Structures are given as C-alpha cells and as structure tokens.
C-alpha cells in the first residue's frame, strides 16, 4: 500500500535548513494498522504530511498503491487526497459554521456528488459513528469525543484506502480515547489501511505494528 524509499525532507528555517526526515524507509501492507511513535519534534507529523501528500519531500521515493508520488501538481494531489486518503487530526479541524452532517458531507462536495445524495450518505456515516441524533448540531455544541467521531465519519465518507490520523486521541481523556480507538479499530477491520501517530503507549499497543521515529530516523521496525 505504502512504500517509502530513503525519503529525505528538509525545512528551510531562515538561512538554515533543518533535516527533518533522514533516509526514511517504510513499507506498509494493505490492511495494516500501524502506529508511529517518537519524541516531540522527531518528525512524526512531517512524515504523516508526506504520506498524506499535504507536503513534498526532497529526496527518495514515495509509492502509494504502486504510483510514485512525486512533483504532483496541486490538482492531482487534491484528487489523491479526495479519492484515496482520509485525515483525522488532533484538533478535529471541523468547519465551525457547518453542522455535523455538512462537515461529514464536505469531501463529497469536492467529488461533485449532488447535495441531496451527499446529505443522505452523510447520515449513514453519522449513524455508523453513533451520532445520527447530532446531525444538525454545530461542532461548538459537541464534546471532544463527538467532534472526533464527526471527523472520522468525514474521513470515511470518501471511501479512502488509507486513513492517516495525527494524534487522534491527543485532545481527549482516556475514556474517550478508548472509544475512539475502538472506532478506529473497527474501521480498520473493514479492510482500510490505517496509520496513527501517537504519544500514548496504550494507543500504540492497539495497533499491529509500532514504528519509532527518532530525530527523523526510523529507529526500530521489527
């Protein structure tokens, strides 16, 4: 599903350049559920952004489902994000002025699905994350756990092959974290490949494989 071949990435900070990813090699099979751990600043989010084609890289090769992701124009990148990937963020990133249902439906708007159909499908996904009754509520009226469920429903609606979650439980208490991980695991069991960045060991423990990052290098990949 995902193959990274000696990926190197730099950030330009003023006149300096910061080497954030160093020769990262990584292979993730279809249907795997992997977690990425590491100290703050070790490059976890950067790696996830590269995987999500939200950011580029300087050297190496990134193959997504057999296609080389390199020098994509914005339109192509948007297409892959829309059709292939689903994102779950620590801070949810819901649009505050849209209802739960509208937020969930948004990826379908960019697939040019008609409004009525879009809303119907959004309802199905809200039901799946147990929030059907909250469809018409704004994010500000929901708890953190509920918001993350909405975000997960939104990530799922485009029928992605790969879900990228950056600290999806980082803003939640342990009880809620647990429920979110239950939901993600359940989704993984439907066959979707999943990569979860986390600080928490019990979150990592629920994945099939843990990748440790240290100073931009993959440390232990058993």
């Amino acid at each position, binding site marked *: 599903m995902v193959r990274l071949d000696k990926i190197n990435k730099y950030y330009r900070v003023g006149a300096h350049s910061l080497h954030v990813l160093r020769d990262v090699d990584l292979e993730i099979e279809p249907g795997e559920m992997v977690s990425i751990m590491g100290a703050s600043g070790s490059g976890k989010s950067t790696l996830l*952004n590269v995987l*999500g084609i*939200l*950011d580029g890289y300087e050297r190496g090769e990134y193959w997504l489902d057999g296609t080389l992701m390199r020098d994509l124009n*914005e*339109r192509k990148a*948007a*297409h892959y*994000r*829309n*059709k292939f990937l689903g*994102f779950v*963020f620590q*801070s949810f*990133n*819901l*649009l505050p*002025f*849209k209802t739960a249902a509208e937020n969930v439906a*948004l*990826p379908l*708007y*960019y*697939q040019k699905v*008609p*409004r009525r159909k879009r809303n119907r499908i959004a309802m199905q996904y809200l039901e799946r994350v147990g929030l059907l009754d909250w469809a018409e509520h704004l994010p500000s009226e929901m708890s953190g756990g509920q918001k993350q469920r909405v975000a997960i429903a*939104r990530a799922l609606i*485009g029928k992605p092959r790969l879900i990228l979650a950056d600290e999806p439980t980082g803003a939640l208490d342990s009880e809620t974290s647990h429920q979110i991980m239950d939901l993600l695991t359940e989704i993984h069991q439907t066959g979707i490949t999943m990569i979860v960045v986390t600080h928490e060991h019990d979150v990592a423990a629920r994945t099939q494989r843990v990748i440790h990052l240290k100073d931009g290098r993959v440390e232990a990949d058993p």
Partner: protein
Amino acid sequence: MSLDRWLEILSTLGRNRLRTFLTMLSVAWGILMLVVLQGAGQGLSHGTQEQFKDDAVNSIWMFAGRTTIPYGGYPVGRRLTFDNGDYDALRDAPGVEHLTGRYGIRGGGFFGGEVIVRRGDKSSSFDVRSVHPDHLYLEKTIMVAGRFLNQRDLDGHRKVAVIGMPVRDFLFGPGADPMGQWIEVNGVAFQVVGVFTDEGGEGELRKVYLPITTAQRAFGGNDRINMLMFTVGDADVAESQALADQAIALMAEHHDFAPADKQAVRVRNNVEAFDRFNKIFKIIELFVWVIGLGTIVAGIVGVSNIMMIAVKERTKEIGVRKALGATPSSIITMIVEEAVFLTAIAGYVGLVAGVAILQLVAAVLPANDFFSDPTVDLGLAIKATVILIVAGALAGYFPARAAARVNPIVALRDQ
C-alpha cells in the same frame, strides 16, 4: 451555477453580516454614482438636443445686414435686403439641397408687428410667415391634415394658407376640419389647405404659412425676402462652411458688396453649431464615465481588500478544504464567485436606487431647455451589468489567488 454553489456562497457571506453589508454598500454607492451621473449627463444632453429638434440641423440661415467694407463705389453702412434674385441664384447653386426664403408680414395695427388672423367673429394675433415650399424641410414641419404649400401655389399667387394646430383649434374649434374654409390674414382672405404640427413646441405652432409670392404681392413686399435658409445634405462642417462662403459670394455679386464683408450677410451655420454642441456633450459624457468608473474602481478595491481579509481569516478553513480534496481551481472559483455575487447584488441595488433617483428627478423637475428625460437607457443598464461582473471578478481575483496558495500544512498547524 447550481443551487448547491449558491447555498455555499450564501452561508459564507452570512457568517460575517456586517462586513458583507459594508462591502456591498461601497459597491452599491459606486454604481449609484455612475447611474446618477450618467443620467444627469443624458438629461443635460437631451435638454439641449430638444432645442435642435425643432429645425433641420444640417441647415444654413442667412440674414441681410449692413456693409462695413467700402466696395464698388458704395459707402459703408449700406443696408442690404434679399430679394427673389438671391433665391434664384441660390437655387441654382451646387450643394444646396432644400431652399426657402421667408418674408414676414407686418401688421398694420396700432402696435405695428402683430398680424390679425380672423375667421367670422373670432380673431387673434398669430405669427404669419410667407415661405417657399421647401420650408417644410427646414422647419421640420409635420402635416396632420391636407398639404403644405407647393410650387403651383407660388406660381399662381394662390391665396392659400397652412395653419398650426392651435390656430385651427382657436379659429375652428378643437379637432374641427378647416380644410377649404377661408380665414382673413390682415384683411386678405386665404383658403386653408393644410394643418401642421411641429416638435419645436407651442411657439412654433401658433403660426400661419402663406405662399411667399402671394404675400409679397398682397402685402406690398415687392420681391423682398427677409431671410434665406437652405439645407446642405450630409455635408460636414468644412463643406458646409464652403457652401456658406459660396452663398455669400453669390450675394456679393448680386448686391455689389465685398465678399469678405462679414457684416453684410450674417450667417448661422447650424452644422457647425450642432457639431460644437455634440463635441461638448461627448466631453461631458467622458467626464461622467471617468468619475463613475473611478467610484467603481474604489468599490472594487474595497471589495478586494475585504475579501483579502476574509481569506486570511479563512486560512484554516481553506486548509481543511484542501486536505479534503479541494483543488486550487475550486478554491479560486469559490472566492471569485463570492466576490461576483457580492458585487452583482450590491451593484444591482445601486442600479435600481440610481434609476429611482433619476425617475424622481424627472418627475419633480419639469422638462426645460437644459435638462429633460434623464432616464437610464437599456445600453447603460447592460454596460453597468457588464461592469459589475467584471468588477466582481477583478475584486475576487487577488484574494482568490491568495486563497489558492494557502498551504494546507501551515493552515492546519496553527491552532
């Protein structure tokens, strides 16, 4: 554009109502200014055009004056009078299209000038003009019944008259048929053969036209003519000037005065006057457009600025949309559509308000010689619409580009 997109735009604009309102106000004001200024310019132009409507604008009028240059042994200050010989000479001259003389009849009454027109026990004073048949073209006389004077009237010194509608109404009663009836002009009987109207207004209608030859004979005019008028076809200013000079030369020969004597024959060249008038109004029109467009440009800059701030505020939203698969073009379309929508609605409000103001002015202010009919024509409405859409697109362009450049990682990182 689908309903979907409309709802999307409305929901965004509805989020910051005050800002949306202020933006729209600036655009509405710009269009309102353009429409009102434009309408005022048109009103000014119409008002003055009204004055030209009455007579043929491609005409040259000539009046006899006094000599100021000694010539051919005559002293300076000699008073000239046109006569039928002048008419004949001009008639045969090239470039002269329609030609008429005018011989005014002076009343014999106590106050001198007025001419009494009588029918039975009804009488009043009207302006009586004796003219050639071509006078119809020079004065743009419009016949409503019967006919105008013709050459046979002149050749036969017939006692026929053509009267204006108010003259008919007064003498015969409103709408009555005066054809073949007799009226008395200064005591001489004339038979009515036609009724006319004229766009020049009441003053041009309270008139009676007689054949010039009949009048010259009946009222002791001999072969005198007070004034000569002719049209010059579609001659331009220079050509009309040349025709006027040619006419003066003919008269100089006939009356023995210096052709260079500007006072001997006074000329009113309507081609030139109309041209000058047109140039002035072209300049006024241009001025109006410059000011109006300036106001609109200010509106565009305002919209653009406000949209720019909006894009900054919406960085995060745009980042999220991009992460969910929004293409740069869909982001650009979104912002430009918002801007076009804003300007179009606001501009339309301004357009309607401007038209309303003009209508009000038109209703309150009676038409006069300087200002009339300040309405907005369809052409302006179309121009304004095009300007609005272009303005909206322009206003949206830079903010949209800024939005499309939003980097989703940066946008998603700031909490």
